[in-house]
């Protein structure tokens, strides 16, 4: 059930409705073209040779047998990539060392994880390409792998990257290390804060590396022309990001690369970085300018893309006798994988942010280990951090004898409060969301019974703005053709079109959306950061305002008045006694100056953060340790829900991924760093049988940072689930689980330890 609290401005005509999505028919009939669905004349198929070792020096690569294999058209290794100097580049908002980025595409002198790409082949079909890739001989000097952040931080640990020094905001350490960065957030004086506490709880938590688990494997096809012009068709969260990365890795001008988006079968942060695209370009260039398609197997996706960090987190919280939080301290150590860049910074931004706490210290460490280079995963770092913090919040509220939601209401942040980094909140909706949670039928229902428990957790995600572009033309029949640059990963064609229709006060059926390639629209950042409906929708709003101005000029021309004398409301232009419908005026464009076209780009300087509160009832089988999710309610402040059915879908999907992370999902490596469960039988994601219907409550506290009050909604729903499930398990069996996943074996072990 979706309830919408009518706290936002009334009077929306399109926003808040649920039209059928524009790409729906193509997607339910199988006609939509995803990454691997493209076929071109003369297409070659590529295969990638990957490292069987987690840590090894490459002494030599012999590709001669592969190159000679019948049907092979090209073979490439890192020698075919430009050798890039070590330089930090800002790709979008992320800072990436371009040399590491290149080395992750094809290993140059060292392989740093099981599955690290070493060479690639293009051939007449996939079977030939794979057979040829297997003939490439690589001479490795195997090195001991480092698979755990604590081991990686030990003084005698094997070093992954000889030149790495610990960065500390513009300063760096002097000796070789696996600690890429130390980050610190601090406010007040935690010693004083803990002195003022009547109750203090401190616990240590660990979480396993997990994968986004999108169902579509990565796929990329490239065609290089003899003049060097490159076209790439791929499934990505951001076409412009692909263009920027390929240009950086291959040292090409941006204008030389056109990226054409195909439909994307899930991303969740994992399809921002390129893996196959540069290889497809190299292979196309080297095979006599034939198009080359590369697709990953599921094993490749799990072993060699960008999962999110496992982590080791300690949390210490203190509260006074009245239940007011006085101090908080945390240390977060996150696996970066093979190269620097874990989401520890955003984890620090998440961990205590729902609460007003006068004295806080948060230390973060970004640590390289011999696992794949981590990428973003939905509210990157947030699930791990909230699992730790919200477990301790739950324990603290229990010690104080306070209801967990009442405790959060007592300490929750609101407008004007400062985050640990000092920045003050604009209008936010945590308290409203907590109050809505308190009044749900679920929360007010009787306690669920023996071996059953109810858990609650809150979560914060800051969201993001970013660059977006849109353009639109008015057609002679009064319909609108909208062009924008955001890949549609879950209904955004429609949610963006709805904002244009709203601005023009026209029915949604009037607007049709096309997603353009990188040559055909202004720069638009990827579909990440919960930004697409927010920022590209804002661009569509600006386009609508401009179209109104353009059409008023046409009306003024027709009526012999000035544009300032023309009003527009309810789909009708008026001036004095004159009036004309939108469609009527559109029919007059021919003769009054031709087509009316507008384009707009935005780069918002603020964006409303999101808060979520989740409630879950579980049943634990004490014999087997199996946890059943009996009932689940997700609540969230959406600012203004543009497309409520799909807002609810984001909330349900985030909850489901978080439940998988909580209970089952983990990468399991052997002592040599080989991934043992690179398939979906052994990497256990939730199936339909594992979940109940997920109830959703959308709270609407409009963001002051958007013309329609929109807040991003995609990421925050994955922040609370692991903590909520952990808290529910505690209420069911009386044991606090401090390690993710809370798999049956761990639960049985925890129960046995309690019995002793």
């Amino acid at each position: 059930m979706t309830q919408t609290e009518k706290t936002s401005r009334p009077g929306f005509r399109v926003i808040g409705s649920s039209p059928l999505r524009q790409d729906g028919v193509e997607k339910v009939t199988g006609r939509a073209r995803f990454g691997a669905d493209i076929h071109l004349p003369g297409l070659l198929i590529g295969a990638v040779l990957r490292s069987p070792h987690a840590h090894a020096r490459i002494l030599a690569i012999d590709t001669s047998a592969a190159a000679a294999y019948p049907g092979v058209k090209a073979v490439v290794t890192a020698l075919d990539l430009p050798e890039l100097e070590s330089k930090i580049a800002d790709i979008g908002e992320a800072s990436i060392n371009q040399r590491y980025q290149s080395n992750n595409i094809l290993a140059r002198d060292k392989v740093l994880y099981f599955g690290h790409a070493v060479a690639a082949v293009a051939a007449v079909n996939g079977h030939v390409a794979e057979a040829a890739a297997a003939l490439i001989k690589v001479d490795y000097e195997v090195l001991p792998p480092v698979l755990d952040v604590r081991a990686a931080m030990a003084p005698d640990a094997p070093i992954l990257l000889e030149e790495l020094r610990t960065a500390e905001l513009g300063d760096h350490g002097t000796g070789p290390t696996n600690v890429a960065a130390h980050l610190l957030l601090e406010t007040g004086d935690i010693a004083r804060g803990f002195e003022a506490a009547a109750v203090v709880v401190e616990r240590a938590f660990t979480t396993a590396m997990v994968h986004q688990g999108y169902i579509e494997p990565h796929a990329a096809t490239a065609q290089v022309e003899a003049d060097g012009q490159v076209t790439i068709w791929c499934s990505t969260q951001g076409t412009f990001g692909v263009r920027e990365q390929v240009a950086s890795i291959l040292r090409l001008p941006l204008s030389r690369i056109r990226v054409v988006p195909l439909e994307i079968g899930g991303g969740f942060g994992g399809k921002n970085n390129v893996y196959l695209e540069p290889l497809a370009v190299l292979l196309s260039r080297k095979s006599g300018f034939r198009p080359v398609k590369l697709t990953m197997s599921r094993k490749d996706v799990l072993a060699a893309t960008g999962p999110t960090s496992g982590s080791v987190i300690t949390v210490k919280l203190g509260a006074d006798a009245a239940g007011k939080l006085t101090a908080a301290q945390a240390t977060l150590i996150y696996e970066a994988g093979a190269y620097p860049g874990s989401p520890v910074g955003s984890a620090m931004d998440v961990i205590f942010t729902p609460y007003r706490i006068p004295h806080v210290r948060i230390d973060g460490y970004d640590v390289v280990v011999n696992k794949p280079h981590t990428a973003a995963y939905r509210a990157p770092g947030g699930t791990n951090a909230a699992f730790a913090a919200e477990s301790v919040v739950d324990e603290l509220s229990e010690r104080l004898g306070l209801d967990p939601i009442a405790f959060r209401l007592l300490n929750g942040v609101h407008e004007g409060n400062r985050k640990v980094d000092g920045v003050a909140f604009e209008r936010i909706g945590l308290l409203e969301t907590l109050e809505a949670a308190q009044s749900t039928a679920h929360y007010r229902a009787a306690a669920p019974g023996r071996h059953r428990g109810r858990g609650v957790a809150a979560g914060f995600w800051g969201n993001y703005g970013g660059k977006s572009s849109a353009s639109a033309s008015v057609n002679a029949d009064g319909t609108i053709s909208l062009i924008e640059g955001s890949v549609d990963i879950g209904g955004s064609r429609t949610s963006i079109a709805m904002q244009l229709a709203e601005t023009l006060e026209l029915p949604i059926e009037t607007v049709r959306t096309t997603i353009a390639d990188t040559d055909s629209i202004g720069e638009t950042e990827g579909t990440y950061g919960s930004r697409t409906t927010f920022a590209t929708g804002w661009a569509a709003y600006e386009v609508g305002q401009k179209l109104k101005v353009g059409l008023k000029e046409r009306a003024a021309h027709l009526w012999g008045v000035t544009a300032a004398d023309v009003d527009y409301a309810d789909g009708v232009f008026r001036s004095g006694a004159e009036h004309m419908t939108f469609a009527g005026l559109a029919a007059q464009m021919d003769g009054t100056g031709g087509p009316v076209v507008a384009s707009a780009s935005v780069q918002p300087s603020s964006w409303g953060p999101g808060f979520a509160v989740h409630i879950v009832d579980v049943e634990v089988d004490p014999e087997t340790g199996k946890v059943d999710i009996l009932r689940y309610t997700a609540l969230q402040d959406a600012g203004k829900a543009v497309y409520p059915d799909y807002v609810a879908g984001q909330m349900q999907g985030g909850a489901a991924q978080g439940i998988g992370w909580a209970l089952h999902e983990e990468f399991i490596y052997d002592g040599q760093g080989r991934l043992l469960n690179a398939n979906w039988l052994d990497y256990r994601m939730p199936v339909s049988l594992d979940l109940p219907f997920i109830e959703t409550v959308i709270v609407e506290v409009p963001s002051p940072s958007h013309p329609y009050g929109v807040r991003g909604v995609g990421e925050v729903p994955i922040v609370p689930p692991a903590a909520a499930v952990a808290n529910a398990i505690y209420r069911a069996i009386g044991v606090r689980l401090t390690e993710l996943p809370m798999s049956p074996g761990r639960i049985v072990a925890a129960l046995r330890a309690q019995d002793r």
Partner: protein
Amino acid sequence: MATKTQVEAVINGEPIEFLCEPRQSLLEVLRDTLGLTGSKEGCNNGNCGACSVLIDGALVNACLVLAVEIQGRQVTTIEGIATPDGLHPLQQKFLEHAALQCGFCTPGFIVAAKALLDRNPDPSEAEVRQWLAGNLCRCTGYDHIVKAILAAADRPTGAEAHP
């Protein structure tokens, strides 16, 4: 090059002949030889159901069937679900219930759901969840999918939504 075998089958109601290598899966032939790319490859080992098709009415993963095995048989893929008059009720309900986000798993779910409704026109929520356990969706948490299928079966939802 391996020798190719000629296969005759009926796919989505149309008699069809194709050549394939004995090692090629039905999924590979559907996608690469016949251009029927609605069946998706998510795992290529039977774990995800994105390539669900019907062979003589039975639900199978096309990645686990060799193309030569369909000799003389009837195959229905996602491309064969809609009627000439329009969408199948399942397709319509998937749209109305917002049962897809990225849409990649959607063809597999619709084919699987059709197989369920063909044999059990009035399934319970539990029966739907049991039947779909071989189809992975990472976007939706299955909520809207299960509701869409129950709606297509004309069964009201909500009564058994929670204990």
